[in-house]
């Protein structure tokens, strides 16, 4: 049987190669996800290990709570620890980073703008001048005294400074000038930039006099690290902890692992979708192979092969194909990982990494590929076992499940899927209690739909393949697409990426219009083959349609592969569009400001800008907006926003339903309606709030508001309340109105030129602001679609696969057609047409499912986020036409193969 399986593989090598490609793609994405994430975390772990090499342990403050700055330790601890006989050297350090403390140390250019390359954080800490561990090498001499600094080479390059230059920096104590005494290479760059001072100067500059953040410990000679740690622990205050080097590395990489884990899971999700799609293709290929070998199987049965032997033969074939496909897939994963890594590195902020292929990667990838192949081959193998010798002689396919059985099983599977999806959507709870039932629900739903679609695939493709239907549909949708693009869509493109998308859309539209028109024209002329793509409206169309309808099982499986991809694209599109529509609605209602000023990287920016804006002619009113985390009496940490209460209402709508905004200036707080309800707060109540400075303030509820769409904070206070506890003078966001009668554009230009001095600040009018908010949703949709392109690509391979198989299967028939006068072009047109209608069937089914999924999701998502279903017509029409075009492309190779068949050989091919 193994010998036969090997022979079978050799005989149908071409068919198996295409199927292998489907496995390779799916497994490749799985292994690529592992390889990339392993490489990344390996790199980080090594870097951290290198950076901390040479120290045996480290004292640090215990983990801070609710987003506060880490607590610093008293400097006296350094002496206490150093006095221990077990401790050799105790080296203290202080640090501060721009994320936590509003970029205190940023180099300023001559024009006052901040040197903030690519939005990476600028991190400052003390450096004792040692090289070899964290700082691998240094040019110049380590900084000494409050006027000297060392910066890393990346930052030096961005600022254009070298050793000995003077640089101006913004610091928490105002602007200062430093001499760059050294330019250093840190071992961990990872997109951050470093500004370093000596320990004493750092303490002074960071406002941490008498405090330390970290004490690096080296053990005394002859003492073990454990003994030293035990000794140190006896003198540590409760807010401090001591970790050995391995623990430091672990703690550090745990943080990265979390980020990398999210990234890996996202990639694995899309790899899983691609793999799921490839199951249908593998299944289809085996089903067709079994069908083509009916006579061989029947003969084997006749001469005494048992059912089990026949089945085993098919499964052995599956195992071989699965192993080969997975092995190649792992290699392909290297390519995928390398491609993604290069893409990220090109955009910056990604460290150089080695390539880690862990044993786990190889085992999981092999298993996944193998299991996928075997699972898909199970049903065909089972059917092969049922082939009776007689039936095989008569060349009859083994009887499959009856119509009723198919309806029953398909409906049950579908129902399970729908119930699971419903549980996921409406059950609520944690992320995994939503996602797990949703994912399994989707899998069951697709399998159920695939089973049931066999029932209507025949009539459906028969209808879709009719020349008048196809002609009118292509022509109509081709004309509709540009209309939609210029009305509801984005119209002419802005950037290079949207430019490419635009060109593709217009091309697809032109091809669809020409094809549709040529089909209709050829119909009008009585069905001769004419026009672009040789879309014969007559016989070719009929043959194609009947071929597609002839084996509904195959058509349904092929189409389902496409359906899955397109359904997900449509779901994302519809949910995204609905989100945008709701978002635009609420934002339009909520905003009254004319100008919106914020940092493109989302970082806070100097309060000086708002001060300067006040001097601009034509500015009406201004409010600053800031936010931070606070703790409530029950320990909950929540976000609190602050703004100028006297002008705020002229810039945003808060929808105050009870009380009023006026009380804010008098230590009041506005509470969001849901929050007020869940905490049982009413106007006049007192709400104790603990600010990050550790002080608790008794705020009075002065009002309840219900429009939270811009600030997205449950608590709003006046700026004066906020500044008492968080004095840093940086704003998150500034809103302004333009005075009556002033030239809006001129005011905007002037504010923008002011803002240019403060870094990457954008100044937008209402329309631009709304657009930029929608663009963020669009970018997310685009990203997801790019990832789903994996799955669509696999489905595309599936279509090629099926069409090639169908050409092989019909070799004799094609030969006969050619003999009685079908031209090569007519042959190609027939194959092309068949491929197009299979793709269209898959696409239409996918869009129907996708819209239904999205509608369910919209119902499940709270109304505050999405309130109604909104259909992205442009994208959906584009998806259908794109699928049709993909059908044409998928048919290129099989059609050429069919057209170039040697007529005589084809006719004399042993019958199938």
């Amino acid at each position, binding site marked *: 049987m193994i010998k036969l399986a090997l022979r079978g593989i050799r005989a149908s090598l071409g068919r198996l190669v295409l199927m292998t490609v489907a496995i390779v793609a799916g497994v490749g994405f799985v292994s690529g996800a592992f390889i990339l994430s392993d490489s990344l975390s390996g790199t980080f772990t090594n870097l951290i290990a290198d950076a901390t090499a040479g120290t045996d342990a480290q004292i640090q403050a215990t983990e801070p709570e609710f987003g506060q700055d880490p607590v610093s330790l008293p400097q006296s601890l350094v002496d206490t620890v150093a006095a221990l006989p077990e401790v050799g050297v105790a080296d203290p350090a202080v640090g501060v980073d721009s994320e936590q403390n509003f970029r205190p140390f940023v180099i300023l250019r001559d024009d006052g703008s901040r040197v903030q390359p690519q939005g990476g954080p600028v991190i400052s800490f003390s450096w004792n001048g040692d090289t070899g561990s964290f700082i691998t090498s240094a040019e110049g001499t380590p900084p000494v005294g409050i006027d000297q600094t060392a910066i890393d080479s990346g930052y030096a390059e961005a600022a254009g400074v070298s050793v000995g230059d003077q640089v101006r920096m913004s610091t928490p104590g105002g602007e200062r000038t430093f001499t760059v005494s050294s330019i250093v290479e840190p071992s961990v760059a990872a997109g951050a930039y470093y500004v370093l001072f000596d320990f004493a100067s750092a303490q002074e500059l960071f406002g941490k006099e008498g405090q330390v953040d970290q004490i690096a410990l080296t053990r005394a000679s002859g003492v073990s690290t454990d003994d030293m740690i035990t000794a140190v622990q006896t003198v540590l205050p409760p807010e401090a902890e001591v970790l050995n080097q391995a623990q430091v590395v672990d703690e550090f990489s745990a943080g990265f692992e979390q980020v990398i884990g999210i990234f890996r899971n996202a990639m694995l999700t899309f790899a899983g979708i691609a793999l799921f799609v490839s199951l249908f293709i593998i299944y289809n290929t085996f089903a067709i192979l079994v069908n083509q070998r009916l006579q061989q199987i029947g003969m084997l049965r006749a001469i005494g092969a048992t059912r089990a032997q026949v089945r085993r033969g098919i499964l052995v074939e599956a195992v071989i194909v699965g192993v080969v496909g997975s092995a190649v897939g792992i290699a392909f994963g290297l390519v995928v990982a390398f491609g993604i890594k290069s893409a990220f590195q090109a955009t910056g902020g990604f460290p150089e990494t080695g390539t880690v292929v862990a044993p786990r990667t190889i085992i999981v990838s092999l298993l996944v590929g193998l299991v996928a192949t075997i699972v898909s081959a199970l049903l065909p193998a089972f059917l092969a076992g049922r082939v009776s010798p007689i039936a095989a002689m008569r060349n009859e396919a083994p009887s499959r499940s009856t119509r009723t059985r198919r309806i029953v099983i398909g409906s049950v599977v579908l129902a399970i899927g729908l119930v699971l999806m419903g549980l996921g959507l409406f059950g609520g709870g944690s992320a995994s209690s939503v996602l797990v039932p949703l994912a399994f629900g989707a899998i069951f739903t697709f399998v159920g739909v695939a089973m049931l679609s066999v029932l209507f695939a025949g009539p459906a493709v028969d209808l879709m393949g009719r020349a008048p239907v196809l002609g009118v549909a292509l022509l109509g949708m081709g004309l509709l697409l540009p209309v939609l693009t210029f009305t509801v869509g984005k119209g002419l493109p802005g950037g290079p990426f949207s430019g490419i998308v635009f060109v593709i859309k217009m091309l697809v539209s032109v091809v669809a219009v020409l094809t549709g028109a040529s089909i209709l024209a050829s119909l009008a002329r009585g069905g001769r083959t004419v026009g672009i793509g040789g879309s014969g409206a007559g016989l070719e169309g009929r043959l194609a349609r009947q071929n597609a309808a002839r084996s509904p099982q195959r058509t349904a499986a092929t189409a389902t592969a496409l359906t899955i991809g397109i359904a997900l694209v449509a779901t994302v599109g519809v949910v995204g569009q609905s989100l945008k529509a709701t978002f635009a609605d609420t934002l339009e209602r909520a905003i009254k400001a004319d100008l919106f000023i914020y940092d493109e990287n989302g970082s806070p920016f100097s309060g000086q800008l708002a001060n300067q804006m006040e001097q601009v002619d034509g500015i009406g009113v201004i409010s600053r907006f800031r936010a931070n985390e606070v703790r409530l009496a029950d320990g909950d940490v929540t976000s609190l926003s602050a703004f100028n209460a006297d002008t705020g209402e002229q810039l945003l709508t808060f929808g105050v339903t009870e009380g009023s905004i006026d009380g804010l200036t008098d230590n009041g707080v506005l509470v969001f309606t849901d929050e007020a309800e869940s905490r049982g707060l009413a106007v006049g109540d007192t709400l104790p709030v603990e600010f990050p400075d550790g002080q608790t303030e008794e705020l009075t509820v002065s009002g309840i508001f219900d429009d939270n769409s811009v600030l997205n904070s449950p608590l709003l206070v006046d700026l004066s309340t906020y500044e008492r506890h968080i004095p840093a003078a940086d704003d998150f966001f500034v809103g302004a109105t333009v005075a009556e009668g002033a030239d809006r554009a001129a005011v905007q230009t002037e504010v923008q030129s002011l803002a240019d001095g403060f870094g990457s600040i954008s100044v937008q009018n209402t329309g631009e602001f709304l657009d930029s908010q929608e663009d963020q949703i669009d970018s997310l949709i685009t990203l997801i679609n790019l990832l789903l392109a994996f799955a669509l690509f696999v489905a595309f391979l599936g279509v090629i696969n099926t069409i090639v198989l169908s050409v092989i299967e019909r070799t004799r*028939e094609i030969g*006969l057609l050619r003999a009685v006068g079908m031209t090569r072009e007519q042959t190609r047109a027939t194959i092309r047409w068949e491929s197009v209608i299979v793709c269209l069937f898959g696409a239409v089914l996918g869009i129907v499912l996708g819209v239904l999924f999205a509608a369910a999701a919209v119902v499940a998502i709270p109304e505050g986020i999405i309130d109604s279903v909104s259909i992205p017509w442009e994208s959906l029409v584009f998806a259908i036409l794109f699928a049709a075009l993909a059908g044409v492309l998928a048919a290129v190779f099989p059609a050429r193969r069919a057209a170039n068949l040697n007529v005589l050989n084809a006719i004399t091919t042993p019958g199938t």
Partner: protein
Amino acid sequence: MTETETSASPLPPPPPDALSDTAAAQAVNAVKIYGRGDTEVHALNNVSVSFERGAFTAIMGPSGSGKSTLMQCMAGLDRLTSGATFIGGVALSTLNDKALTELRREKVGFIFQSFNLIPTLNARENIRLPLDLAGAKPDKAWFDQVVSATGLGDRLDHRPNELSGGQQQRVAVARALASRPAIIFGDEPTGNLDSHTSAEILDFMRTAVDELGQTIVMVTHDPRSASYADRVLFLSDGHIVDEMAKPTADQVYDRIRSLGG
């Protein structure tokens, strides 16, 4: 004018006026060699033959004698190694694939031993196939005549797998007739049928020649089938070795025996 070339020595091609203007199809010094070197097979060894319009010709000969090769080359399904074949005065070697394909669907009809019909098309659609491929409007009267001659009546809307073998072959004959070709080639068209059904089909073909004026060339193994023809050619080792006019089954049988086939 009929040529019976039995010499194996290569002859210079006959002058153009040697072409018969009453012939539906003609082969001149046809040579077909399969393979190369040691495995070289001379399937046709300088065959010249002409098929008169309105005649029913049978070709007989032992297996491997080149009957199928001759038909395939004359029908434009395959190309000769040397020599020329003509259909309606057109030299097939001068045509490219597209022109050859169009010639096949307009001037040539085929009946194969089996697998003659497209399984997804019903009987009527199969009969119309060459016309539909050409995008031509069928000559209604002719089409009806051909269809009624098949005697299929109400089975015309059935797919091939719903028809008996004999019915399928009748559809194949009708399909070959539908475009009113210059000539119809049949390679053992009744080879798969029992003698009764076989006789039906041969009657049908005979009628097509007598009443519809068609030209038919048919390969057969069966002397009784050959007796339906106006003329029988005997092929052996790629040569035409003999011919017989107005054959009876017994005469053919005797001749085959004397040829050692």
